[in-house]
């Protein structure tokens, strides 16, 4: 079935998108020349966000990549621009339907049904993430409660008054909401909320300590979907809670070695390369996500056959750094930090380039408010030792006072890259 869909997409892209028409011409092939999925993986050029940013800069809004007329675009979204430039993302109405459907698989797996009601602790804007969740709630047939325009305490008041059963927020903001509730004297576990659901940052699947924190604070089951704004809400959580499954109705994906581009074996870490059947407005074919995953394609204990990513995304191929000769994934450092008692959920991973040319990571973390100041140094030493034991490299740790690091409502900026621009890849700038 995926092969049929891929063949249809190749013909569609060649007929409708100038970018892909040129690409086929450049490689001297027709869509029908691709006869197998293996051949497609090996021979179809990979596409990348930077290609699309380039064409958009050259010819706003979408450049040569569009496959529909602008009149057929039903919704425009943008990425946050965390890699430098905002990516413009067009969707047809049909794209929004299928994108919404992708969210539903994760909700349904947890037990969320059309009788549930969703509170969006989200200020809308142009960020695709929770707009697409909104399309999903509409499609599911559940109730939408908008939290747009509210302060954090305003969200808590609405959640208590409106009694939603599901709260949608980035994981960090859900923690922030729970903290605010405590300050307000509100007992969230006794509220109507039965599920919290997340996207946009490493969530409860990637960070087990974060799951515990969310589930205790809300007295609810925490779930997440791994999405890429321009592709799809493509990988809903496995109901067993330790990974995500690629939605193979809407995507074809495989893993490649980020350095030599060849396919990696099952169970090996590789970069997730995705072809989306959801994106008709701007097709994305053999698209590099830069997400590093450990994938298995077999029957999961949950009963699903869709490709499974153990631990969700393990890191980023464009942000894997070499610290004193050792490859370190900042996400893996984040896991270690969140697992350490005495550290609050607010921390930063600082990346520097030393005069010697070596790169160095430093962890700066807020102490838990209950921790006496005299414990800061022992805590820093303890965490640094754990990091050294795990990564076999020294990562300095600095413990700072509570409420001194910045708070964010949307994507939390936890990895602070202080390297000079010329020592970073284009998309890291």
């Amino acid at each position, binding site marked *: 079935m995926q092969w049929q869909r891929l063949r249809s997409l190749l013909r569609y892209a060649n007929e409708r998108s100038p970018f892909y028409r040129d690409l086929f011409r450049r490689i001297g092939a027709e869509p029908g020349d691709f006869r197998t999925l293996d051949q497609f*993986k090996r021979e179809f050029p990979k596409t990348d966000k930077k290609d699309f940013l380039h064409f958009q800069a050259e010819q706003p809004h979408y450049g040569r990549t569009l496959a529909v007329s602008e009149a057929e675009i039903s919704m425009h979204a943008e990425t946050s621009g965390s890699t430098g430039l905002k990516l413009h993302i067009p969707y047809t*109405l049909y794209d929004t339907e299928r994108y919404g459907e992708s969210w539903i698989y994760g909700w349904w797996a947890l037990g969320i049904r059309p009788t549930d009601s969703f509170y969006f602790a989200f200020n809308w804007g142009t960020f695709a993430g929770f707009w697409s969740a909104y399309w999903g709630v509409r499609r599911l047939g559940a109730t939408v409660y908008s939290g747009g325009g509210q302060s954090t305490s305003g969200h808590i008041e609405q959640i208590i008054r409106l009694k939603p059963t599901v709260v949608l927020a980035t994981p960090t903001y859900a923690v922030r909401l729970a903290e605010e509730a405590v300050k307000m004297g509100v007992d969230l576990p006794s509220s109507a909320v039965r599920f919290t659901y997340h996207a946009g940052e490493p969530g409860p699947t990637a960070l087990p300590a974060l799951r515990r924190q969310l589930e205790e604070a809300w007295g609810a089951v925490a779930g997440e979907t791994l999405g890429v704004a321009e592709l799809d809400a493509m990988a809903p959580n496995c109901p067993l809670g330790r990974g995500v499954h690629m939605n193979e*109705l809407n995507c074809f994906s495989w893993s490649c070695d980020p350095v030599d581009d060849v396919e990696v074996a099952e169970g090996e870490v590789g970069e997730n390369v995705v072809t989306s059947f959801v994106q008709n407005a701007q097709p994305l074919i053999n698209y590099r996500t830069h997400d590093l995953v450990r994938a298995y*394609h077999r029957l999961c204990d949950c009963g699903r056959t869709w490709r499974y990513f153990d631990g969700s995304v393990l890191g980023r191929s464009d942000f894997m750094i070499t610290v004193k000769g050792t490859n370190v994934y900042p996400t893996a450092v984040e896991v270690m930090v969140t697992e350490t008692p005495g550290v609050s959920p607010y921390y930063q991973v600082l990346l520097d380039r030393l005069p010697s040319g070596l790169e160095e990571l430093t962890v700066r973390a807020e102490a838990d408010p209950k921790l006496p100041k005299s414990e800061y140094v022992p805590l820093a030493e303890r965490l640094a030792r754990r990091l050294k034991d795990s990564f076999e490299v020294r990562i300095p740790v600095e413990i700072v006072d509570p409420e001194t690091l910045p708070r964010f409502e949307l994507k939390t900026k936890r990895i602070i890259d202080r390297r000079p621009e010329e020592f970073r890849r284009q998309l890291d700038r």
Partner: protein
Amino acid sequence: MANDLSELIRRVHDLYRLTKDCREGLDIPAVDRALELAAMHLHDALWVLGADVGLNPDFDAPSDAAGPTTSGKEST
């Protein structure tokens, strides 16, 4: 009928074609739009059922794929 997948796909396909036929030459914008949306949702139903349809209602020729792949990952 609901348990007979091929019969279900055939009947949804009939509805889909009928809906598209009804739009031909139609000059009532509200009804045309309603039928356009109906066709989109019926195409979506066929998609979810795994029917051999094209990418969208505007590009819905069945696949000409002859078939098998060597990776073993062709089906869901």
